[in-house]
C-alpha cells in the first residue's frame, strides 16, 4: 500500500509535467489550429538554457529560472509565431504539420551546436537539494523536486484559470478558441491574441522543460521529444479541445505510468521491452479508441475556397518541344554523370550514387503516400527497417536467396502497412500521422530489441545478393550500383503507372473531395489500405538495399524514427508529387554529405576559422539546413523543385515566344503559341456558348 502511494506521488510529479505540456498543446491547437509536434523541442530549449545557466555557470536558481522560463521561452514562442505560424493560418493541414515537423527536426540540432552533442548529466531542479527525500508517513518517500514540480504546476494552473476567468486577455483567448473569425468580426485582433497564446504556451513548455530535467538526471533531446508523446496522448484524449480534460489526462497518464511500471514483472523480455514503449502504446490506443476522433477531419479554413487554385504541374502545361528538350537534357546529363561516376570518378562518388539510388527508392514511398494520397506517414523508416530485417534474417539464418528475401520483406512490410492502416482508417490528417509516429516509436523501443527482428546486440549481418553468375559483392560496387539503379527504375515506373492509373486518379479524387468521391462509389477504406501497403513495400525494398549496401542492418542510425521525420520533411520540401522530386531529394542529400562535409567544411576550417572561431562543424549540418528548407513548403506546397520548374518553364516559354516573334513577325499565332497554356479565366456560361 505504501509502495502504491509512493508510486502515485512520484507519478504525480511526472503527471504534472505532462499536464502542463498537454494544456499547452491544446491551447496552441485551439488558438492557431496548429498541433505543435515541436513542443518537446521547445521544452528542450528551456531545459538546456536552465542547465547551462545553473550548472555550467553557477547562476543562482531564481535568475536561471527566470531567464530560461520567462525570457528565452516566450521569446522563442514569439519568434515562431511571427516568423512561421502566423502565415500558416490559411495553409493546408499538411503544410502546418510539415512545418512543425521541420521544427521538431531542426530545433534540437541547432540547439546542440551550442549546448553540445551529448546528453548532459548532473541536472539540478529549481529547489536547492532537490533529491532530499521526505518521509512523512513512514515508508512513503517524496523528494523535494517532486514536491516542487507538483507545487509549481498547481500554481501555474491556478494562474491560468485566473487568467482565463478574470482578465481581458483571457477572455479574448477564450473567444479565439471558440471561433477566431467571429473574434475578428467583433473587432479583436486575432493575430495579437494568437501571439500572446504562443508566448504563453511557450512559457508552459519552458516550465515543463525546466521541471523535467531533474526527473531524468540528464538533459537530452530524446527525453523531451518522447515525453511529449505522453502529453500528446493526454491532448488527444481531450479531443484537442478541452483544457481541463487535457490537464486531468496528463496527470492520470503520469500516475498510471508509474503504477503500471511498478507492477509489471521485471524479469521477462516482453516486460523490459514494454516498459519504455508504454507512452507510445498509450498514444496509439488513445488514437484508435478515442470516440471524439472518429471521422474527425481537421478544420479547414472556410474561406480557403477563395484562394486561387494551385497551378498545374509544369510538365502538364509545357509545350511538346520543351518537354522533349527537357527529357533529352535529362537523359544526356544522366548518361554523362553515369559515365563519369562509373569510369573516372573516385570511388566515394560511386558511394554517393549508390546511396542516392537507395534513398530515392525509399523516398518514392513518400511520393506515393504523401504526394498521391496526401497523408503524412511518420514511419517510413520503420517500413524500411522491416524490409531490411526480413532480408537479413532470411538470408543469414535461413540461407534464402537475398533478392528473394528482399521480395518477401517487401510483402511483409506491405502486410504490416495494411494492418496499420486498418485501425487508423477512421483517423484523418494529423491523427493518422500521430498514429504512424506512435507505431514507429513502438517498433523502435520494442520490436527491434527482439533477437529475431533486429538481430540482438549486434546489427544483423546482410549479405550482398548474387544473381546467376553476377555477384554483387563489396569489391564490385559498380555492379551493386547497377542493381540499385535497376530497382530504382522499376519502382519509378510502377509509381508512375499507378499515379496515371485508376489508383492514382481515385486517390487524387479522395484527396480533393472525400464526400464527392464517396458519391461516385469510391471506397476511402480500400484506397487507404492500398496506399499504405504499397508505400510500405517500396520503403522495404529500399531498406533491404540499404542493409545489403552496408553489409548489416544498422537500425541506429539508418532506420530510427528521427529518419522518418527528416525524410518526410526533405522530400516534401523538394517535391513530393513527382518521381523526380524524390530522386532529386535523394541526390541532394547524398551529394550534400560528400560536397559539404568534404569540400565546404575544410574550406571553412582553413579560411574562416582563423578569423572567427566557431568550433568544429557538426555532422548534422545537412539535417539542419535541409529541414529549414521545409519552411518554404507553406508557400510552395508543390515543392521547391516544381516551383523552380514552373519558373524556368515560364522563362523558356517567353524566350521561345520572343524568338518566334522575331523570326516570323506578322504571324501572331505561331505553332508554339497555340500550344502554350492559356491563362485561366472563368468559362462562359453554357447558355451563351
Amino acid at each position, binding site marked *: 500500500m505504501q509502495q502504491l502511494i509512493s508510486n502515485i506521488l512520484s507519478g504525480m510529479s511526472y503527471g504534472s509535467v505532462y499536464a502542463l505540456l498537454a494544456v499547452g498543446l491544446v491551447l496552441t491547437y485551439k488558438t492557431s489550429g496548429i498541433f505543435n509536434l515541436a513542443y518537446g523541442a521547445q521544452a528542450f530549449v528551456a531545459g538546456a538554457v536552465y542547465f547551462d545557466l545553473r550548472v555550467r555557470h553557477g547562476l543562482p536558481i531564481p535568475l536561471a529560472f527566470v531567464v530560461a522560463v520567462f525570457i528565452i521561452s516566450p521569446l522563442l514562442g514569439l519568434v515562431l509565431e511571427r516568423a512561421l505560424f502566423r502565415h500558416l493560418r490559411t495553409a493546408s493541414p499538411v503544410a502546418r504539420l510539415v512545418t512543425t515537423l521541420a521544427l521538431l527536426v531542426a530545433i534540437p540540432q541547432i540547439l546542440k551546436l551550442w549546448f553540445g552533442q551529448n546528453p548532459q548529466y548532473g541536472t539540478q531542479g529549481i529547489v536547492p537539494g532537490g533529491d532530499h527525500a521526505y518521509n512523512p508517513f513512514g515508508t512513503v518517500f517524496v523528494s523535494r523536486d517532486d514536491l516542487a514540480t507538483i507545487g509549481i504546476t498547481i500554481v501555474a494552473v491556478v494562474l491560468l484559470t485566473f487568467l482565463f476567468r478574470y482578465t481581458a486577455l483571457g477572455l479574448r483567448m477564450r473567444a479565439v478558441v471558440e471561433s477566431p473569425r467571429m473574434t475578428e468580426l467583433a473587432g479583436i485582433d486575432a493575430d495579437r491574441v494568437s501571439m500572446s497564446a504562443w508566448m504563453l504556451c511557450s512559457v508552459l513548455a519552458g516550465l515543463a522543460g525546466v521541471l523535467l530535467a531533474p526527473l531524468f538526471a540528464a538533459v537530452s533531446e530524446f527525453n523531451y521529444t518522447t515525453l511529449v508523446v505522453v502529453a500528446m496522448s493526454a491532448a488527444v484524449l481531450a479531443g484537442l479541445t478541452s483544457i481541463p480534460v487535457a490537464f486531468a489526462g496528463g496527470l492520470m497518464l503520469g500516475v498510471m505510468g508509474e503504477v503500471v511500471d511498478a507492477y509489471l514483472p521485471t524479469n521477462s523480455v516482453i516486460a523490459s521491452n514494454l516498459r519504455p514503449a508504454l507512452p507510445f502504446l498509450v498514444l496509439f490506443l488513445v488514437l484508435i479508441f478515442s470516440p471524439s476522433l472518429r471521422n474527425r477531419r481537421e478544420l479547414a479554413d472556410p474561406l480557403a475556397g477563395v484562394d486561387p487554385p494551385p497551378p498545374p504541374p509544369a510538365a502538364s502545361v509545357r509545350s511538346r518541344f520543351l518537354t522533349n528538350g527537357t527529357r533529352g537534357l535529362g537523359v544526356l546529363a544522366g548518361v554523362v554523370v553515369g559515365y563519369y561516376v562509373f569510369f573516372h570518378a573516385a570511388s566515394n562518388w560511386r558511394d554517393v550514387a549508390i546511396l542516392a539510388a537507395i534513398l530515392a527508392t525509399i523516398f518514392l514511398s513518400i511520393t506515393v503516400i504523401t504526394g498521391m494520397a496526401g497523408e503524412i506517414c511518420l514511419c517510413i523508416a520503420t517500413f524500411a527497417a522491416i524490409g531490411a530485417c526480413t532480408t537479413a534474417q532470411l538470408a543469414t539464418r535461413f540461407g534464402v536467396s537475398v533478392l528473394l528475401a528482399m521480395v518477401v520483406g517487401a510483402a511483409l512490410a506491405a502486410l504490416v502497412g495494411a494492418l496499420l492502416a486498418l485501425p487508423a482508417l477512421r483517423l484523418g490528417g494529423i491523427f493518422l500521422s500521430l498514429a504512424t509516429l506512435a507505431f514507429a516509436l513502438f517498433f523502435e523501443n520494442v520490436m527491434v530489441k527482439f533477437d529475431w527482428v533486429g538481430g540482438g546486440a549486434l546489427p544483423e549481418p546482410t549479405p550482398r545478393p548474387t544473381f546467376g553468375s553476377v555477384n554483387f559483392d563489396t569489391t564490385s560496387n559498380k555492379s551493386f550500383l547497377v542493381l540499385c539503379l535497376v530497382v530504382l527504375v522499376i519502382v519509378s515506373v510502377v509509381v508512375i503507372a499507378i499515379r496515371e492509373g485508376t*489508383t492514382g486518379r481515385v486517390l487524387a479524387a479522395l484527396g480533393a473531395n472525400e464526400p464527392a468521391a464517396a458519391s461516385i462509389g469510391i471506397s476511402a477504406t480500400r484506397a487507404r489500405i492500398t496506399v499504405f501497403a504499397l508505400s510500405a513495400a517500396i520503403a522495404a525494398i529500399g531498406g533491404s538495399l540499404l542493409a545489403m549496401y552496408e553489409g548489416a542492418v544498422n537500425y541506429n542510425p539508418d532506420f530510427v524514427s528521427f529518419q522518418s521525420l527528416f525524410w518526410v520533411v526533405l522530400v516534401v520540401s523538394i517535391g513530393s508529387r513527382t518521381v523526380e522530386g524524390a530522386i532529386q531529394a535523394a541526390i541532394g542529400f547524398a551529394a550534400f554529405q560528400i560536397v559539404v562535409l568534404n569540400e565546404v567544411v575544410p574550406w571553412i576550417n582553413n579560411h574562416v576559422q582563423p578569423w572567427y572561431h566557431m568550433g568544429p562543424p557538426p555532422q548534422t549540418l545537412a539535417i539542419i539546413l535541409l529541414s529549414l528548407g521545409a519552411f518554404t513548403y507553406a508557400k510552395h506546397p508543390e515543392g521547391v523543385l516544381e516551383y523552380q520548374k514552373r519558373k524556368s518553364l515560364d522563362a523558356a516559354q517567353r524566350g521561345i515566344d520572343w524568338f518566334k516573334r522575331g523570326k516570323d513577325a506578322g504571324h501572331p499565332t505561331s505553332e508554339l503559341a497555340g500550344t502554350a497554356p492559356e491563362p485561366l479565366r472563368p468559362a462562359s456560361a453554357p447558355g451563351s456558348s
Partner: protein
Amino acid sequence: MSLLVARSVTKTFAGITALADVSLDVDEREIVGLIGPNGAGKTTFFNCLLGIVKLDAGTVIFEGRDLARVPTYRRARLGIGRTFQRIELFSGMTPREHFLVAERVRNGRGALWKDILFLGRPSADENARANAMLELLDIASVADRPVESLSLGVGRLVEIGRALMTGPKLVLLDEPSSGLDRQETEGLAVKLRAVQKEQGIAILLVEHDVDFVRSLVERVFVLDFGTLIASGPTSEVFADDAVRRAYLGDLV
C-alpha cells in the same frame, strides 16, 4: 415496382425532429420533386437516403433491397448517383478527368496490378464514353480546364455528368439551381430533360425554385417542418391550399 421506396423515415437531432414519418417513392424513369421551405428537412432526408445520416426509424429500399447496412459508397455502386447543394468537385482536375474517374469506378478497373500492367491509360472506349458525356452536357469546349476556372453553372453540369458516368438508375439532385441565374436555370432544365430521356434514369429533385420544379417534374412531395404535407401530380399539389400557405406564401 418502385425503384426507390422510403418508408416512415424518422430522424431527430438532439430533441428536434428533423424528419417525422416521411414516406416517398420514385418509379423507374420518373422525375420526382421534393420541395419545402428552408429547414423543412429536405437535405436531411437526402442524407438519410444516402446513408450519410443514420435513420432513427424507417427503411430505405432500393430495387427491393434494404439499404440499412449498405455504406454510402456502396449505394453509389448500386446505382444511386447524386449531386451536392454546395458544389463538390475534385479540385485540380478537369471535367474530362472527373468523368474518367467515375467511369473507372463504374467499370471496376481499380485493381492495382492492372494499373502496373497497363500503365493505367484510359482506353479508347473510356475516352469515347467521356467524350459522349461531354457532348451530351455541351461542355466539351471546357473539357480540359481545371474545374476551379469554370463557372458555377458549368460546375453543376460537371457534377451531374460525374454522377451519370457511374451508370446510375437514380440520380438525386440537391438544389441544382441554387446559385444559378434564371437563364442558367432554364438551360439546366433543358439539359436535364434531355439527359433523362437519353439515359432513361429516374431523378429525385430537391429544390425550392418552384418554376424549375414545375418545368421538370411530374410528381412532387412537399415537406414542412419534417412532415410530408402533400404529395401527388405537380399541378394538383401546387393548387393545394396547405402547400401554398406553408411554402409559396398565400398569394391568392
